[in-house]
């Protein structure tokens, strides 16, 4: 009887990997540190997903249900891997709940951590109630409450979305582009304009990176159909005059300083490496790349390999990633596990 595959993390990539393995009848165990599956889209209450426009609770919820119903998948929630030893085909994983698992291989799907905006105090998060993050706006939309200023519940007349909060910023040691925030912000801007047609939305950017097909569907559409305004400016600071938030910066296209009043300021927060990555790296004996994400080895020879044979990785554990690509990588890692298992058997 062959041993199961250990999947660490029950977000989009972990759910995809588990589903792939289940379809060929390969047993697996998902170990999830939170109390339920779904990962960031579910736990952080995302609203409509890019690019399908489906609600996260339906789309990712469907993936969770599919995995929960699969007989070959066992799920352990509220637990982490605390010890790990062995060789491909013959690993032992110790869990924080005291259990021990004999597993054939591992897929690390531990995801990312949202950037904590208090680390950019000049942009007012934590100081002013009406400075919020994209995650909070997602929750306002997904909860059905609608986009409102947290301070007094009023409908904002003017919203500023600041891009690259926690991304592309050497000051705070985050040089990467978080890849998804431009598109997510365009999407949120359109949703705000849809819900509150009298509310003007301004996006302050350094570059717009709505890559690939997101260009027309988000960047162009937000301008052409929703009249969202894009201003090339990296904001210097967000303050308040007691009534409104004051956004200060330079409008680089007119070479003029600006101090514009806003009702609400939204930080498009980036994707940090999972805060647990140092622990995960040490426990599993796998390398991190220079930014702190899990390093992908042998990119052209295998799918989702790490520095340790038999341990694979998928999704935003490897760097900022879209939900779609995380899912693809989850499936790919399952494929790598299966081909690895076959090689072991024939050896």
């Amino acid at each position, binding site marked *: 009887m062959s041993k199961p595959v250990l999947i660490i993390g029950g977000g989009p990539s972990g759910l995809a990997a588990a589903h792939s393995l289940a379809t060929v009848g390969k047993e697996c165990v998902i170990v999830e540190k939170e109390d339920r599956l779904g990962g960031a889209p579910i736990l952080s209450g995302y609203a409509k997903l890019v690019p399908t426009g489906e609600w996260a609770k339906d789309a990712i919820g469907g993936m969770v249900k599919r995995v929960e119903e699969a007989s070959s998948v066992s799920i352990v929630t509220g637990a982490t891997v605390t010890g790990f030893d062995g060789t491909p085909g013959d690993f032992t994983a110790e869990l924080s709940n005291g259990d021990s698992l004999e597993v054939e291989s591992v897929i690390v799907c531990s995801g990312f951590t949202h950037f904590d905006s208090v680390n950019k105090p000049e942009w007012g998060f934590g100081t002013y109630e009406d400075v919020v993050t994209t995650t909070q706006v997602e929750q306002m939309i997904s909860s059905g409450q609608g986009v409102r200023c947290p301070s007094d519940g009023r409908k904002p007349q003017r919203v500023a979305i600041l891009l690259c909060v926690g991304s592309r910023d050497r000051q705070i040691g985050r040089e990467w582009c978080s890849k998804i925030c431009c598109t997510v912000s365009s999407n949120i801007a359109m949703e705000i304009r849809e819900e509150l047609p009298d509310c003007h939305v301004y996006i302050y950017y350094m570059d717009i990176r709505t890559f690939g097909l997101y260009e027309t569907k988000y960047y162009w559409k937000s301008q052409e159909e929703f009249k969202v305004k894009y201003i090339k400016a990296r904001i210097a600071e967000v303050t308040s005059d007691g009534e409104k938030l004051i956004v200060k910066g330079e409008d680089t296209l007119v070479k*003029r300083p600006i*101090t514009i009043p806003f009702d609400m300021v939204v930080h498009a927060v980036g994707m940090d490496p999972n805060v647990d990555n140092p622990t995960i790296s040490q426990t599993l004996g796998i390398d991190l790349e220079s930014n702190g994400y899990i390093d992908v080895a042998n990119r052209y020879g295998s799918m989702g390999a790490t520095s340790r044979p038999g341990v694979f990785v998928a999704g935003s554990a490897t760097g900022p990633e879209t939900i779609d690509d995380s899912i693809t990588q989850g499936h790919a890692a399952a494929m790598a596990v299966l081909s690895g298992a076959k090689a072991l058997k024939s050896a």
Partner: protein
Amino acid sequence: MPIHEKSLIRPENLTTHEELVLDGVDVSGHWSTFIETRVVKDYNEDMQDEIAALPGGEHIHRCWQCGSCTNACTVNALNPDFNPRYWIYLIRMGYESELLRDKDIIWQCVSCNKCTYACPRDVFPEGVMKATAHWLEKKGHTEKSPSTHFDEVFTEQIVSTGKIEESRTMRRFFSRTGQALAQPWMIEMVKRMLRGLPVGMLTRMGLATLIAPKTNDWSKASAAIQEYIDEQHDKQVQALSLAELVETAKQDVAA
């Protein structure tokens, strides 16, 4: 402190007071020149919608500031201050005071439409320039341009008769723009025409001057066109809040 580098500061941002005492300190005169802030304090969110309400301006919100229009521009090659990309941005973001600084050159667009073909997003910058020039006129920022006068004279004649009688158009255009009919080039043209003794043409011209030619059964078409023009006019008056503008002006005069 005197300001040495005044050339770097816009003249309108420099203020010198003849007599001013602040907190007991005399700050009058040249040695106490003040510099007004350059900081933009707000956006005029109506501006883009107002330009978009005028013919040609409909697609201004598509612009993403690539600069293809300015690059392609015939007038920009002659006058670097003529910058459609920049004006489109000012309108989109509502930097009204900035736009007004250039109000006397915006009308200079020659409608070559090179920008129209260069634009990757179908903004139709040429149309936007036209709409902007009209916006400036309608809002009272600029006088009616000669070309607007010409358009009006031309349109009025079409609506009333269904035909264009050139000499009438020219006479009205000259009178409205305060120009003498006896322009040197006009005199020269008439002289040369007369050399060939064009009896038939002169007769027709003379008759047309006396009795304005009219398209048969024109009244119905005329009424329909006029109705459409009025409709568009009313829409623009509303979109540009012109009635309110007039009201404010009246109150200012009364006060």
